C-alpha cells in the first residue's frame, strides 16, 4: 500500500505549491489514479484515435465511399505486403461463372504499390480548403485496392467503414449530450428539491426504465416519414435514442444531489445567501463533475449500440448516409455473408469502440471515486 502511495505522490509531481505545502487538485489526483489503470489509459487513446478518424474521414479514406465499380463486386480483402519498405497488394482478376454470373477472384502476381500522401479524389479538408491528398493510397492514380474488401456495388469497404465512424460516433456523442442535459435537468431538480417533484420524476424514470427499449424505438423510428432528408433523420434518430437513454443518467445525478444536499459546504453556501443557481452550478455540480463525466462516458456505448441496431433494421439512418449500422444491413442475409464475411468488419469496429469506451469509462469512474482503493 505504501508503495502505491509513493507512486501516487510521484505521479502528482505537477502538484502546486502554496505556502510551502504541496497540494494536488481533485482533477490532478484523479488523473494520477486514472493513469495507473493501464487498460483504461490505452482505451482512452483508442477512443481519441477513433474520433480523429471520424473527423478526418476524407483524408484517411483512400477512395470515395460512394465510388461504385461493377468490376470489383464483393472483392475479397487484399493483404498488405512489403517489398523492402514499399508496401504493395497483389491484384485480383475477376472471372464470372458463365452460368450463374457469380464472381470469383483470383490473386495474380501483379502488384499495386501504395504510398503515403497519395493523390485521390477531391474533397474539402475540414470543410475548408480543397485538396486531393489522402494519408495513403495507390501510387498510380486511378488504381484500386481493397484492404477491407468491397461491397455489393464494388465500393471500398475500408473507406466506407471510415466514413461510417463519422455518423455512428458523432451520433453517440450528440445523443449523450442531449441525454446529459435532460438527465442533469430532471435528475437535478428531483434530487435538489425532493418532495413531490422528486416523486413524480422518479415515477417517470421508473416508467421509462420498465418499457422494453427496442420495441419502443422501433415504434418511434417507424413514425419518421420515409422521405425525410438524411440530416433530419439523423437528428430525429439521435433524439429518439436519447429520449430513452437519459433515465440512467438522471438516476446517478439525482443520487448525487440527494447525498450532497446535506453536506456542510452546501448548507454553508445556502446560509451565506447564495442564490439557488449559484449553489447548484458553483458548489454542487463541480464536486460531482467527475462522477457525471464517468457516467456519461459509460452511456455513449449504449447510444452507439442503439444507432447500430436501428439502422441495421432499416429504421435508423438510410443509405446514402453511411453508418456502421447501415453497413451491417448489407450483412443481413446468410447467402451474402457466407460468401463475403468481410462485411462483418463494421461490426468488429462497433465491438472495438464499445469495448474501448466501456474500459475508458470504468477507469474514469474508479479514478473519480476517492474511496476506490
Amino acid at each position, binding site marked *: 500500500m505504501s508503495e502505491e502511495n509513493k507512486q501516487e505522490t510521484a505521479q502528482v509531481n505537477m502538484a502546486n505549491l502554496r505556502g510551502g505545502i504541496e497540494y494536488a487538485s481533485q482533477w490532478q489526483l484523479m488523473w494520477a489514479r486514472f493513469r495507473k489503470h493501464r487498460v483504461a489509459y490505452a482505451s482512452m487513446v483508442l477512443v481519441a484515435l477513433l474520433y480523429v478518424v471520424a473527423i478526418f474521414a476524407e483524408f484517411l479514406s483512400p477512395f470515395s465511399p460512394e465510388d461504385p465499380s461493377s468490376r470489383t463486386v464483393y472483392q475479397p480483402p487484399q493483404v498488405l505486403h512489403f517489398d523492402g519498405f514499399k508496401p504493395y497488394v497483389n491484384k485480383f482478376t475477376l472471372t464470372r461463372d458463365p452460368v450463374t454470373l457469380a464472381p470469383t477472384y483470383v490473386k495474380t502476381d501483379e502488384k499495386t504499390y501504395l504510398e503515403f500522401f497519395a493523390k485521390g479524389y477531391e474533397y474539402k479538408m475540414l470543410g475548408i480548403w480543397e485538396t486531393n491528398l489522402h494519408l495513403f493510397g495507390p501510387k498510380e492514380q486511378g488504381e484500386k485496392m481493397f484492404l477491407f474488401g468491397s461491397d455489393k456495388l464494388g465500393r471500398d469497404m475500408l473507406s466506407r467503414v471510415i466514413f461510417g465512424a463519422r455518423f455512428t460516433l458523432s451520433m453517440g456523442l450528440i445523443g449523450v449530450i442531449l441525454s446529459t442535459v435532460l438527465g442533469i435537468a430532471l435528475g437535478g431538480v428531483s434530487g435538489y428539491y425532493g418532495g413531490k417533484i422528486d416523486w413524480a420524476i422518479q415515477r417517470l424514470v421508473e416508467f421509462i426504465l420498465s418499457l422494453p427499449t427496442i*420495441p419502443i424505438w422501433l415504434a418511434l423510428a417507424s413514425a419518421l416519414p420515409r422521405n425525410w432528408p438524411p440530416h433530419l433523420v439523423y437528428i430525429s434518430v439521435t433524439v429518439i435514442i436519447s429520449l430513452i437513454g437519459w433515465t440512467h443518467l438522471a438516476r446517478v445525478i439525482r443520487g448525487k444531489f440527494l447525498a450532497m444536499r446535506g453536506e456542510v459546504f452546501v448548507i454553508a453556501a445556502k446560509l451565506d445567501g447564495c442564490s439557488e443557481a449559484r449553489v447548484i452550478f458553483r458548489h454542487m455540480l463541480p464536486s460531482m463533475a467527475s462522477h457525471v463525466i464517468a457516467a456519461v462516458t459509460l452511456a455513449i456505448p449504449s447510444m452507439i449500440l442503439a444507432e447500430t441496431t436501428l439502422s441495421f433494421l432499416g429504421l435508423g439512418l438510410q443509405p446514402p448516409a453511411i453508418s456502421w449500422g447501415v453497413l451491417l444491413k448489407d450483412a443481413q442475409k446468410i447467402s451474402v455473408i457466407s460468401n463475403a464475411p468481410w462485411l462483418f468488419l463494421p461490426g468488429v469496429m462497433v465491438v472495438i469502440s464499445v469495448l474501448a469506451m466501456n474500459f475508458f469509462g470504468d477507469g474514469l469512474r474508479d479514478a473519480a471515486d476517492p474511496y476506490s482503493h
Partner: protein
Amino acid sequence: MLNYIFKRMLSAIPFMFMVSLTVFILIQLPPGDFVDSYAAAAASSGETISPEKMADLRHQFGLDRHILIQYFYWIGGIVTGNFGYSFEWQSPVKDLVGERIGLTLILSVAAMLFTWALALPIGVYSAVKRYSIGDYFFTFVGFIGLAVPNFLLALVMMFIASKYYNQDVTGLFSPEFQSADWSLARVYDLMHHLWIPMIIMGAASSAGLIRILRANLIDQLYMPYVVTARSKGLSEVKLLIKYPVRIALNPFVSSIGWILPNLVSGAVIISIVLNLPTVGPMLYQSLMSQDIYLSGTILLVVCLLTVVGTLLSDILLVILDPRIRLEQ
C-alpha cells in the same frame, strides 16, 4: 406482507393505464393512417383507390372518429378480450398473435433461466477467486458480451452454423412442424431449435449480471460475520452458500424486473434476424404497414410482460429479504 402484495398489485393498475396510453400514442404517431399506406401500396401495384372508397374504408375501421374515442374503443375491447382487427391480415388480432406471444414468453423465460444458470456459478467463482486467471478471463469475456450487439451475435452464429456445420439456425421449428398442432414431437422439435436464440439472448444479460453478483459478493466476503463463521470452523463451501451468496442473490431476484424487459426487447430483434415465429417480426411488419391494432396489441403485451416481471420481482424480494419486509 399480504397487505403489501395487494398494495403493490393495485399500484400496477395506473401503471398499466399509462402503458396503454403510451402505446396508443406511439401507434398513432406516424403521419397518415392505415388507409393511406394501403392506398400507397395499391398505387405502387398500379391500382387506384377512389377518395370515396378511402373515406368508406376509414368509416368502416372507425378511423374517422375522434382520437380519444378510438382509444376508449380500443382499450375497452382489450379489457373484454377483443384485441381488434388486423387490416393487413384481414383477421382478428387475437388469432394472429396468440401462439406468437406464447413462444415469445417461452423464449424469454428460457433465456432468463439460461442467464441465471450461467451467471450464478461464474459470479461466485469470480468473486471468490478474485484476480485469478479465471476471473480475468470471465471479466474479459463479459466485457465482450456487453459490447457485441445482440443482432451481430445472431448473425455471427448464423454464419458459423451455415459455414462450418452446414446447418440452418433460423426459425423455431423444422419445416414439418411449422404449422402442425401441438404434440410431444413438436415440443421436442422446439427444444431442439430454442437453444441458439436462448444463448444469444442470455449472453449479454448474463455478462451484466455476473458483474453485479461479483461486486455484491466481494462486498459480503470480507464482512465480520463471514470471518466469525470461518473462525468457528464452518466449512468453506457451506459458509459461502449459506450466508454471503444468499445475500448477494438479491440482485438475481430484482433482476427479473430489468432483465425481463431487456430480454423481451432483445427477443424482438433476434427474432427478426433469425426469423423466429415470435412477436418480433410481426411487430416490425405491422409498424411498417401501420397496421395499428396489430402493432398496438404486440407493443402492449410486450410492455405488460415487463410490468408483470417487475411486479413479480418486487413480491419475491419481499418474501426473500426480511429487511425489505420490515421497511414496509
